[in-house]
């Protein structure tokens, strides 16, 4: 029961976090109107995962292991690309918030609508298939006892609840701090998602080095413990990490964080100066 609860919680958190941060961002920047698109993405991902999971469990054909891992890994890496793009988009629009550019940015934000749908769909979908397969298996087991399914669903519910609390908490944070913080969190999470994607591809045999571990702290942080679950669910931290995973994380998180922080703390553009200088040069 506890173990199934923890699985639900972990998978739920993995899917929820990015969505919550994007949600908070939209609310915070006064674009609540775009929220339905985010939800549409989530809805599509859930529907596709559940349907696909049911098909693979009860249908005549299953998915090969390589394909499962390749899909999971591939989606993770695509998701990282999209989240990174969102983070920088947010950084850019955040800087112009409150300025006279605001209205123009809002117009442009409409163009990003499909991006939002996709980001949400990928954030949920990359873990969705695995979770759906698990839930169907739990549902099948419920002939014997309902507790596995109940535990897993409870875990998902708690993840959603935590997501909601986070959302509320984030809304109370001061505006400029919020934007920086959200971006930082998203970069760290995305780094974890990337590393996880790399691991899946290693398991599928598409990338090498599955057995060269950079570190293994699985005795200190057992993956089945509640804190192991939280670390995995929030940061995608794996207690036994391969060199390639670690390298992917560092090579992603460090430069992206650098550019992100630079973009965030760059002094605001002094628009009046530009034409003046241009005029001076011209004369």
């Amino acid at each position, binding site marked *: 029961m506890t173990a199934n609860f923890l*699985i639900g919680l972990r998978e739920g958190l993995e899917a929820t976090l990015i969505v919550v941060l994007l949600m908070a961002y939209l609310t915070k920047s006064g674009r609540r109107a775009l929220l339905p698109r985010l939800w549409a993405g989530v809805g599509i991902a859930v529907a596709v995962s559940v349907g696909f999971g049911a098909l693979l469990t009860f249908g005549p054909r*299953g998915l090969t292991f390589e394909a499962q891992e390749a899909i999971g890994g591939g989606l993770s890496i695509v998701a990282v*690309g999209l989240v990174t793009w969102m983070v920088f988009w947010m950084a850019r629009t955040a800087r112009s918030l409150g300025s006279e550019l605001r209205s123009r940015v809002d117009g442009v934000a409409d163009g990003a609508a499909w991006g939002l749908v996709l980001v949400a769909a990928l954030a949920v979908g990359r873990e969705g298939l695995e979770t759906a397969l698990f839930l169907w298996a739990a549902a099948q*087991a419920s002939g014997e006892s309902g507790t*596995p399914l109940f535990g897993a669903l409870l875990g998902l519910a708690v993840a959603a609840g935590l997501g909601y609390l986070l959302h509320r908490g984030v809304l109370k944070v001061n505006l400029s701090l919020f934007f920086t913080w959200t971006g930082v969190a998203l970069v760290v999470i995305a780094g974890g998602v990337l590393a996880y994607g790399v691991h899946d591809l290693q398991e599928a045999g598409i990338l090498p080095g599955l057995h060269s571990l950079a570190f293994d702290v699985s005795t200190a942080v057992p993956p089945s413990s509640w804190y192991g679950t939280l670390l995995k669910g929030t940061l995608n931290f794996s207690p*036994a990490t391969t060199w390639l995973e670690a390298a992917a994380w560092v090579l992603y998180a460090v430069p992206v964080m650098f550019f992100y922080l630079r973009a965030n703390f760059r002094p605001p553009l002094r628009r009046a100066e530009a034409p003046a200088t241009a005029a001076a040069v011209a004369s």
Partner: protein
Amino acid sequence: MPGLTSPKIRRTAGARLAVVAATAVLPLALASCTDNASANPSGTTDGPIQVTSTDADCKVSAAEAPSGNLTFAVKNDGAEVTEFYVLAEDGLRIVAEVENIGPGITRNLVLTAPAGKYITACKPGMKGDGIRADFTVKDSGKQATADADLQKLVDTGVTQYTAYVKDQTEQLVAGTKEFAAAYAAGDAAKAKSLYAATRMHWERIEPVAESFGDLDPKLDAREADLEPGQKWTGWHRAEKDLFPPAGYKELTAAERAAISKQLVADTEELSTRTRTVKLSADKLGNGAKELLDEVARGKVTGEEEIWSHTDLWDFQANVDGARIAFENLKPALQQKDAALAKDLDAKFSALQAELKNHAKGDGFAYYNELSKDEVQQLSALVDALGEPLSKLTAAVVL
């Protein structure tokens, strides 16, 4: 600030890229389907293999299965989340896995497995190497799948043979160290007892070892084949010293130590080099033929182990190596030339059966104990196998 000038263009480009990426994943998903049919417990007599994973145990209801589609129904009877893996013979490559099996939950693992050796593992708590057991997939005569991609079968075979070479070199290094230590220490009895068995690991992968032109003579040169001025090292140098002919002058302790050291160093070098060797289907096929030629040239004649007379150990090992290469190519061969596969199967079995007649304890009769007729019988079977075996490469590769 060029970045601020064209945000719209970049945004749409990003979105488009994502759509492209997402649509690229879907066909992959559809192309990689595997049959679920045998997961259905009703109907067929050979239902899923039951796996029960508890926190300390991993019970697999069968230790072997016929090749084709296998279904493992993995039930978690423990308190911790578990995972179930089917690993390749080397214990490293994941053939298939199912993760996130919560307590009380059964999940099916369906895979298409060609004949070969595998390892199953439950991993309660999702850490460590798991509780492992050997699992054998027997050739059912059925093709792995009706529509299996030939290239994939070939690639799988090559991968499996590469793992076999790795395993054999590892055992060779370990065995050689033990042999060398006993020999260097002057423990002739122990060294003699290890000699033939350790060399088997060498003989099984001889074509790969021989592809390194410098190492082969250092490790396996026979006195009769020495070129003028060539320094004699390796196994047969020790052999002569351990099984001395009449009038032979023993080596000194220092000479033995030097030979031992060289033997271990060369073997380790071999092991390192085989790690990066790139095998391919033609190398497997030709290698199998080479091994059989080796048998005909040196083992059937008793020339290889002129002092120890342990030629039949080498014989068996050469046949092992050839058979494994053939078995690994067999799924592909069955698609291209099923008759040849059948013929080879029969002839390998006949030769193996005859060899078994000469088995004694863990080993074999000495070559000088064989009668002339017995040698002739073996020789005839080797020739009979050699003929179809020479067609293997062309049948698979062309």
